């Protein structure tokens, strides 16, 4: 009989430490399946961030680094420039990527580093216990904005994919979500496309994945999925914002359509 579903070779069998209902595990699987399907695992080097996924090096069955908070794109840059034949990916949370590592991601994208960035946006600092992130929603309560994020005081959430889309350097930039099976299927396609483009040495690639943090959102798993749908999706439109095969006008139009949807 033909095997149609199995455990991805690019994942170890270690049990993860993620909370029940957390989407980090699902996203790990998307990455691992993509590496496996494209035959890239043996050339892959992943960079774990500082954040809840700091221990990702225990879960991916490929060579790994653990980087300083926010610096994963710089580490990946160094590795890729030294060994262009390797497949480099970073796996970063929103505090890691959009706050302390804002300079590193911006410039890695602008240099067009041939790496793949998996950006997990859960609108909060998970690891340190639920503080405000640059992607925290207006009005969202966290331990450091206990009365809800006030845009007058803390500004508005950063839309990283849109921000990077303004760069002239070619890139693959997509935003997907992970809170329903249908979204997971779409998300996986985007992750795989990013790795495919890297393997062909095409451009910088990043997939932002809207995610949940039931523990620090103070919601059940089902409520979290609903909260993401109600609060994050309207502000963070899904879609491919930039693709090297498509003109920027097309990508913008598609993003606009999705935004309206």
């Amino acid at each position, binding site marked *: 009989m033909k095997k149609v579903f199995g455990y991805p070779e690019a994942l170890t069998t270690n049990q993860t430490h993620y909370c029940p209902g957390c989407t980090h595990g699902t996203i790990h699987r998307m990455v691992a399946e993509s590496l496996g399907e494209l035959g890239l*695992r*043996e050339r892959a080097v992943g960079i774990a961030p500082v954040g809840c996924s700091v221990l990702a090096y225990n879960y991916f069955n490929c*060579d790994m680094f653990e*980087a300083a908070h926010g610096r994963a794109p*710089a580490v990946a840059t*160094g590795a890729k420039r*030294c*060994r262009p034949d*390797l497949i480099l990916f970073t796996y970063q949370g929103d505090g890691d990527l959009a706050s302390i590592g804002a300079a590193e991601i911006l410039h890695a994208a602008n*240099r067009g580093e041939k790496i793949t960035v998996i950006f997990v946006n859960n609108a909060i600092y998970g690891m340190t216990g639920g503080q405000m992130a640059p992607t925290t929603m207006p009005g969202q309560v966290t331990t450091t904005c206990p009365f809800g994020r006030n845009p007058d005081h803390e500004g508005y959430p950063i839309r990283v994919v849109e921000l990077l889309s303004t760069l002239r350097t070619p890139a693959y930039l997509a935003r997907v979500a992970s809170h329903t099976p249908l979204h997971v299927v779409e998300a996986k396609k985007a992750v795989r496309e990013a790795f495919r483009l890297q393997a062909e040495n095409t451009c910088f690639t990043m997939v932002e994945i809207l995610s949940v943090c039931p523990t620090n959102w103070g919601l059940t798993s089902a409520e979290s999925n609903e909260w993401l749908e109600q609060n994050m999706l309207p502000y963070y439109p899904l879609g491919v914002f930039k693709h090297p095969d498509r003109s920027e006008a097309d990508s913008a139009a598609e993003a606009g359509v999705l935004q309206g949807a």
Partner: protein
Amino acid sequence: MAKVLMKGCEAIGEAAIRAGCRNFFGYPITPQTEVPEYLAKRFPEVDGSYVQAESEVAAINMLYGGAGVGKRVLTTSSSPGISLMAEGVSYIAACHLPIVFVNIVRAGPGLGGILPAQSDYLQATKGHGHGDYKLLVLAPASVQEAVDLIYEAFDLADHYLTPVMVMGDGMIGQMMEPVDLPDMRDLSDLVEKPWAATGACGRGPNIINSLYLKEDMCNANSWKLKEKADEIERKEQRSEAYACPGDVLDVLVVAYGTMARICKTAADEVKKKDKKKVGVFRPISLWPYPYEALAAEAKKAKKILVVEMSTGQMVEDVKLAVLGKKPIEFYGLTGGMVPSPDNVAHKLRSMIK
């Protein structure tokens, strides 16, 4: 090979190439920008790759990535940039990765000034980044010595799996001197790096990591670093004793880098004109500090004079070597002011009149 006249910074870049380095990551800062400028131009001829990082924070993390995949990597900077690199160097040390980085020291603290100084001594030898680790710090006194030490630094880094800093003051970077460049390193006999993250092909994953959530493992890594530091301390102390023959010295001057050259001129003058016996002791490895060699020289001296382009950062190491057995005086200018041979001679005369 015939000698060539080269500016210190350019010679440093060329020495790195000859040592087998093909990847440089850096950010411009005076007075060392000629290193990245030189390599940006020269690297294409040797299939090298130059990346101008967005900051020194990023540059050192690029070295982390490059060293982790097993390549010889270099960055150069000056004081404020070196402060920004402290985070990355701590990670690199903790992960036992070999890198070479250069500090062409300028005056500080703060933005300080762009002129030569030696005011980063304590940062380099006692601390820099967080945690229990030590940097191997080498201080050249000439462009030739800078070339030789850079060339060797890559081997030392690979051998001990440690960050190595070559620390020169602004003069080392900016002055032009004739140098003998070493041959291109035979890259086929570099040490193997089976730990490098080069893709888990035919083996289990290699993991470059400094996180140890279990305290006994974090403790073990710190002690592993300490053992390495102890070995470096035993094997890598370097120094030079200049014109110190004989059993008795009126004064022994202790100085490093270009300051030591200036002190030699002053010592020669006082010897000749005042018929006094003055020797100069020059530490070349600032860490490990050559305590025993200095103690042996200090035995012969009636007095010790430490001269630095700082307010006296090395004095505590001299005290540790001399252990209170001889009086120690200090003379220094900083902020970009360089003590002249006359300044030093004047100070020497005040000590031996």
